């Protein structure tokens, strides 16, 4: 029962934030609403017993990534976005496509889970310890490989964001 309520609340916040992200003209507001979404998602993770995930969701996403975003927005002092008529395709093909795809997907999801596996708080508990075991044993290779990914990202950031002229 409580679970349901919490789900509805955070779910509502999520959706609201997402929609707000779309609705807002100024990137900053969009960024903030995205942070809201992430926060409430973290809560939903908790509901699903994913402590570890919830935490890093807050730390990495809300903490690191979104800060980076805001930082960039400030750096480029991006203003209100102008509603240019750049692309008809996006509206006449993209949006209907999105709707169709979404509906079909939703239908599948509803239909796909006839078994109605319903979840409740604490029913499944993903402890950091368990995650750690799994991560450093079965998923060792991906974990190591992500280091390369990060390395690439760093290099890229360095190369691309370095101001002009100094080659």
């Amino acid at each position, binding site marked *: 029962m409580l679970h349901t309520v919490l789900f509805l609340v955070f779910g509502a916040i999520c959706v609201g934030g997402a929609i707000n992200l779309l609705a807002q003209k100024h990137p900053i507001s969009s960024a903030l609403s995205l942070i809201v979404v992430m926060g409430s998602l973290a809560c939903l993770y908790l509901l699903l017993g994913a402590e570890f995930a919830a935490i890093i969701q807050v730390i990495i996403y809300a903490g690191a990534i979104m800060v980076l975003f805001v930082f960039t927005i400030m750096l480029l002092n991006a203003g209100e976005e102008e509603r240019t008529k*750049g*692309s*008809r*395709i*996006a*509206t*006449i*093909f*993209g*949006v*209907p*496509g*999105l709707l*169709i*795809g979404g509906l*079909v*997907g939703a*239908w*599948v999801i509803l*239909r796909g889970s006839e078994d109605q596996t319903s979840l409740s708080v604490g029913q499944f508990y993903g402890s950091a310890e368990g995650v750690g075991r799994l991560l450093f044993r079965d998923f060792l290779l991906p974990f190591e490989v992500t280091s390369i990914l990060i390395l690439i990202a760093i290099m890229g950031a360095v190369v691309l964001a370095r101001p002009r002229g100094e080659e």
Partner: protein
Amino acid sequence: MSLHLWLIPVLPLAGAAINGLFGRRFSNKAVNAVALTFTAASFAWAAMVAVRFLGMPAEQVPHLEHYADWLRLGSFRIEFGLYLDQLSMVMMLIVTGVGFLIHVYAAGYMAHEGGYYRFFSYLNLFMFFMLTLVLANNYLLMFVGWEGVGLASYLLIGFYFRRDSAANAGKKAFITNRIGDFGFLVALFLLVKHFGTLQYTEVFQKAAQYPVEIGAGLLTAIALLMFVGATGKSAQIPLYVWLPDAMEGPTPVSALIHAATMVTAGVYMVCRSNAIFSRAPIALEVVAIIGVLTALMAATIGITQTDIKRVLAYSTVSQLGYMFLAAGVAAYSAAIFHLMTHAFFKALLFLGAGSVIHACGGEQDMRRMGGLRRYIPYTFWTMAIATLAITGIPGLAGFFSKDEILWQAFASPHGHWVLWLLGAVTAFMTSFYMFRLLFLTFFNEYRGAEVEEHTPVAAHASANTQSPEHGGHTHTVPVGGHATVAHAPQHGHSGGDHGRHGAPHESPWVMVIPLVLLAVLSAVGGYIGIPKAMGGNNHFEHFLAPVMPSLASDSAGQHGNNALGQHAMEPRQEQTQSHADHQTELLLTGVSVLIAFAGAGLAWLLYVKRRDIPGRVADSLGGLYRGVLNKYYVDEMYGAAFIRPLIGLSRSVLWRGIDQQAIDRSINNVAGGTTGVSNGVRQIYSGNIRSYAGWVSAGAAVVVFYMVWVATR
């Protein structure tokens, strides 16, 4: 035993080759020597062969010689092989003999021409092909000669190729012949398809298995198609148009090719194929009718022409008509007989005309001649003989042959009195225009200088209007400068070096001797064929009989099988005899003789006594006269009906229309369309990220939808 027949055609070929390849470095004498030697040798060998042939026992006739296979595909076999029987022997002798004489004549006539070696190598080449034609032992080899002589005449007519009229005439001759050859070819295809062979012997055997066709059948088809070929080669309606133009060639050529030999090839072919023709009465009828009509029509034109060579040309056409008339009434031997005599006197006439032209320095218009008998007696007398011969004055060659034809036209089972009548009318005209020629040329006073306004329309202007250095009457004498250039026409229409002097003069002896010899031949040539009616017993016919057994429609059945047998002539005898007797024959002969004299008389009246009449007649007849004068506008008709439309069609419809518009345009349109589509497609790549995202998500939607549909299907 082999007679080495191959030498006869090959010797001239050798001559042609030598002159053709190396002649340019030779002196005229050397060229002469080569040309004459090889022709003479060929003639000599032919004569020897003839002698030995006559000595042969009958069962060895026809004498076949096979040298090599030209084609051997399965059972289909074409030989290089020669075939000697009475018919081909006669032809061979005529060709080599007359040919040799004309070579001699030409040696003198062309003495001052450029391109001497060319001329003689062509002439020899012609001899080769002509001999191949007459000696071949199968139709394809005959066709070789057939086309070959066409080629030779093309080259020789176009000998003065710098004159467009000459070039045109040559082309016209060749193409017209080709039209005829088309018929011949199809005939050959029929033979191949149904007889599977082209060898004379086999073809005749197979043909002999067919009865005489009532109605039109295979043989009729073959015969008619062959006759189409003949009309081309022998200048019969409707394909005669090339022959008059062929007079553009040097006169010896006209004599040899367009009078004596080549043009008779058609007659030879019909007679050679008598085994087929005799079994196709309808075809025979057609031949006879075409023949007589041609004779008549040509004669009428001949009356009006004023160019001496053209008169002779039309007379040739009409004489050929006679031959076909004979062949058409299945009197093949008569046809060949006339062919022979005609070869003599017509060659003679042309050579004489050549000598006249030579004398008048290249003049060909009879209206500018006259009174020449004082200047060139030999020519005059020989030509007089020839004229008498052709008009059929008794005692001369033409008399017997022509008389035989007329008689057969009347009496033969295939004959009819109408044919005879038309023939007789033609005979009248013949004698009229021939004597007209004689009188205009040799009598009265020399009109060399002045131009007389005798006929409103320029007679031979119509023939060679395109001729640059010859404008109608006023025959300008060009600067003799390019006479040194290899190909300047001398005799044709422009007085060359030796055409510059006033008074006409007799030709050199090399030209006169052939005249005399031919005169003798045309005088006595007829005596080998005196018909029974006149106490002779047609040796010639008996001689040829084995080659061309006649079979009247009724007795075809029993004679079919032994068609080639020796004794197949008795029935013929009784046929003709049964039809009519000597009295009728003599009567008709008398009539025709009278006609001949009448024509001569009229000519004498009009062109010696009362020379004002022709003009008035011409004026009074007006349109008709002009029509005849312009050869019934046949050339123009052909031009308007076939040639120009064809060219127009090809250019505007086929080429511009279909090729460039329809096909190419449509292809280009396809290309253009593709480019258009391509430009349309490129609009997808608009460069806008959100559009791209739109495409992606739309695509994703489709994919998702499809997969889910598959899943839940």
